[in-house]
């Protein structure tokens, strides 16, 4: 499969910054495509793991951040596990996710960044996840209020959904960790 890329919109492309952020040397990839063969979502996405790597080789810029694989990737790490050159493609995808949010790339179906930020908001607030608040906030944000509503009664009855947040976490430490994370935002460039 030939990989064609548009004229890069970023000078020098994203390769260097992605390599820095992920700690991965992309130079050793010889496009054997084992990553793509084992990827559980490759048959559902337009872009596939080996193509993302190749496009980085060829100097792709910010347009790469609109690739659907970035948010469809399940972080299952099959790509990394099977790569003959031990390239951590999952870490490359993580770096692209951080850049996609930072550079405000197109929001894709499912809005994973919103889910991630709601998840982390509950952790920052309570020290532990609070599913009910996270799910409600996500549903409101995506206008998907009615999805899965039929599951709530059974989950509540079976004790698989807590009404109140769980207490007991060391909130001071968690606040500090999140504050530090906020402060370092954007410094990866």
């Amino acid at each position, binding site marked *: 499969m030939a990989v064609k890329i548009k004229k890069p919109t970023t000078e020098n492309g994203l390769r260097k910054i992605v390599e820095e952020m992920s700690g991965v040397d992309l130079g050793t990839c010889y496009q054997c495509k084992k990553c793509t063969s084992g990827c559980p979502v490759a048959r559902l996405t337009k872009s596939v793991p080996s193509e993302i790597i190749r496009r980085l080789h060829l100097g792709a810029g910010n347009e790469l951040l609109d690739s659907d694989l970035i948010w469809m990737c399940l972080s299952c*790490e099959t790509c990394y596990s099977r790569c003959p050159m031990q390239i951590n493609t999952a870490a490359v995808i993580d770096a692209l996710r951080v850049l996609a949010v930072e550079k405000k790339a197109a929001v894709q179906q499912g809005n994973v960044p919103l889910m991630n930020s709601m998840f982390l908001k509950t*952790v920052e607030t309570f*020290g532990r996840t609070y599913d009910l608040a996270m799910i409600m906030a996500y549903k409101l944000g995506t206008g998907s209020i009615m999805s899965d509503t039929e599951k709530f009664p059974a989950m509540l009855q079976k004790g698989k959904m807590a009404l109140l947040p769980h207490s007991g976490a*060391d909130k001071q430490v*968690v606040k500090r960790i999140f504050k*530090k994370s906020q402060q370092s935002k954007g410094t990866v460039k």
Partner: protein
Amino acid sequence: MKYAYYPGCSAHSTARDMHESAAAVARVLGIELVEIKGWLCCGATAAHQTDRVLAAALPAANLILAKEMGLDTVVNCAACYNRMKTSNHEVSTSPSMKAKVADSIGKEYDGSVAVKHFVEVLLGEYGLDKLRKRFKQSLNGLKVACYYGCFLVRPHEVTGFDDPENPTSLDRLVTAMGGVSLDWPHKVECCGGGLNLTRTDVVVKLSGSIIEMAKASGADCITVACPMCQASLDLRQKDIEKETGKKLDMPVVYITQLLGLCLGIPQKELGLNRLMVEPKAILQAMK
């Protein structure tokens, strides 16, 4: 045998049965699990998709607490296990990450606290021979598809759990309990759990093919050691049936629930009432 126990957030929500059954099994076997006081969420997938330092610092903060207890850490949730092992790997292989994590938490951490999945404790430290002697009941030839998913086995250089392509830990436990562990191809496929709420269609496809393969391989049930896998296969099974129009009726239980049954622990203490797909086939076989 005494360990610092990290329950993880799902222990109080979607995976209460995982937590209850592991606690009951540990109690009966005399394995002491001391909950880490003040534990924090490990950050899970959301953290590592957002900020690499945050993703290393959250687990490290918990491991610092375990270190102060002077104990190895035991985890039941495969996702927490994976994040903790990754954090250990990050701080022990990268001096700059170690410094960033120390700055984030306000305390130094060197990545030295051993992190073990409860299954590793049972097999590696308690031992199968000793365990066999404790069983009061047998699975009586129940056909079990042992499903490992991603987080326990990948990346192998980080988790070091069993074999990354053909793990047998759960199979060995099932065989010891008198069950038949099936040879099937989907042991380490991904259930799609990370997209459970955002792209349910993907979870339905991936988990659907896992359950169908288990069924085609002759399974009476699937056993797991990860709450994400359990939620995808059990909680989403109705959605899968709706999508494919095929009745699956495949119980998906934690390995600690099977162990608990064989150890003679009452069903209620094992959280069997919390499963969405009733474990009728299992209880029938054990009669």
